[in-house]
């Protein structure tokens, strides 16, 4: 009996270790590559640990368009996430508390979700032409609004779950205790859905940060996001793997920060759905 359990445990742990290597090795390899000279990248056999820390690749990224692309990504992701979360909070409150108006009934809520059911590419051509028509291609505005449009349904849907879990009577007690609607939202509702807000921020951010097609189609020259910049790190036949790796390492940092900060809340969301 006892032996069996240990066996199972052993296999489980072994599996987890294999899985960990499978996930972590590419990240490690990227890290490793980013400290190499381009000549060393193609060396056979490759070096598995960085022998010298050569910062050329990082220098290149920081001095050139790479830095601008990273900053652009930060700005677009931050502003768009903020808008999606603020609007999403308001909309989800309406959806949760007044579910019988034409704008918030079940049909309307379903329509909202359909936006997320199709791959973004399905909508992108019309969106592309629209921005072109308005002369807004390749602007912060177009990118931010487009990302917000894709993130808003997600934000509303996630936050509505948290709003629904918040009993209405808590708000009513707050009114009776002397707080106005906005005071109640600020002092009662927002603190109580805090973990929902954190998780929503994280998921919206991650969507934008990892997104390529929109960045590539709607931006690229004036406003270039780092995901759209990556493919340009190819000189003729030569792919600058070390520079790509350096940019990737830099790009992973914000995601790691968000994941570490909001890990607790993200787990909650996954458990819920």
């Amino acid at each position, binding site marked *: 009996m006892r032996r069996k359990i240990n066996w199972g445990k052993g296999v489980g742990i072994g599996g987890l270790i294999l899985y960990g290597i499978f996930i972590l090795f590419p990240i490690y390899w990227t890290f490793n590559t980013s400290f190499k000279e381009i000549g060393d990248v193609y060396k056979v056999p490759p070096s598995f640990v960085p022998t010298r820390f050569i910062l050329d690749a990082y220098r290149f990224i920081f001095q050139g368009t790479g830095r601008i692309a990273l900053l652009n990504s930060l700005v677009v992701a931050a502003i768009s996430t903020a808008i999606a979360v603020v609007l999403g909070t308001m909309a989800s409150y309406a959806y949760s508390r007044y579910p019988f108006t034409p704008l918030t009934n079940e049909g309307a809520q379903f329509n909202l979700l359909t936006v997320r059911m199709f791959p973004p590419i399905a909508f992108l051509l019309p969106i592309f032409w629209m921005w072109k028509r308005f002369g807004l291609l390749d602007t912060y505005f177009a990118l931010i609004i487009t990302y917000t449009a894709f993130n808003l349904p997600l934000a509303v849907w996630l936050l509505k779950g948290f709003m629904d879990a918040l009993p209405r009577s*808590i708000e009513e007690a707050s009114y009776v205790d*002397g707080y106005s609607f906005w005071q109640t939202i600020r002092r009662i509702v927002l603190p109580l859905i805090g973990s929902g807000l954190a998780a929503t921020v994280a998921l919206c951010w991650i969507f934008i940060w990892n997104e390529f097609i929109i960045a590539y189609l709607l931006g690229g020259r004036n406003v270039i996001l780092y995901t759209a910049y990556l493919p340009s790190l190819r000189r003729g036949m030569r792919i600058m793997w070390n520079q790509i790796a350096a940019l990737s390492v830099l790009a992973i940092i914000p995601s790691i920060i968000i994941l570490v900060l909001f890990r607790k809340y993200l787990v909650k969301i996954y458990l819920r759905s």
Partner: protein
Amino acid sequence: MAKVYLENLTKIFEGRVLAVDRLTLEIPDKGLVSLLGPSGCGKTTTMRMIAGLEVPTRGKIYFDDQEVTDLPPEERNVAMVFQFPVIYPGMTVFENIAFPLVARKVPKKEVKKRVEEVANVFGIADVLSKKAHILDAGTRQKVVLARTFVRRPHVYLLDEPLTSVDPSTRVELRTVLKKLQSHLGQTMVYVTHDQSEALTLADRIAVMNEGKLLQYGSPEEVYNNPKNTFVGYFIGNPGMNFIGCSVEEEKGSCVLNAEDFRVFVPDLPNSFLRDFVGKKIILGIRPENLEIHAKAVSGAISFLVILVEPVGNRLVVHLKKGEKVLKAKIPRQEMSLQQEVWVRFPLEFLKFFDGETLETIEV
């Protein structure tokens, strides 16, 4: 403090559920009025309208002479205990109790003083720094009550404040509330569906059923002179006995014929009963007013004992004759099943109700 006046208050939910029906009620300044009625009779809806959480379909609400029908809850200055008690999760007990004071920008020192004062009254001073939502139901309810009584609103609204706590805490809190109310001398509306709670606490009782006010009066009034059979049945433990009878005249005096037995009402100023000769009326008498004799006495009717329930230091005896079953509440004594006893209906305790409208017949 204020007098609360409800004028023709009506609430219809979703255009079809009539929850409160033309309720007119004056709650006197500093009075403790109990809204009493069975489940679903509109008590909570009435409270929510007074608090401003529900908009009346028709009718008006006044605090003193000011109309407040259209004021939002935060501008009404009422304090309410919800039927399903609400504590603010994530806040400590102290923060919970202080919450309404903070809304009114009471200075910090004053807040601390008042929170500690009221926490002492409810015996929760030792948990002030704990998170409120982790406490047990009884303590949570004390927190809710403390939050209510930490300030002096126009009116306190308590919606079944003691149903969610265990019986021993209930008795303890009932005493605290009664003391507080007489000490503070504040207007209070107390919802309950427990008639004994209403009888012990309230100055005046408003009995409701199906959204309507059936009777409004002092505990003695509603107990002694129920306006209709519903009030008679609802107040009292157990409620009043009702016997359908037809009124007959025999040798110049009135007889109530209940088919299985007959009750003579000889020396009553029975002129009013004469108007009912040949009609149906309902005879009402409280279980505690029936006289039970072990031996035959004059004017008594024999019944069989079919059930004996001890209630406190008293017995509730179920008696049967033919189709009719009565309950009598008597001091504890030997009483065995199937025993024959003689029951007398003392004239001074008899109540008469119209057989059709079920309203009381004024003597």
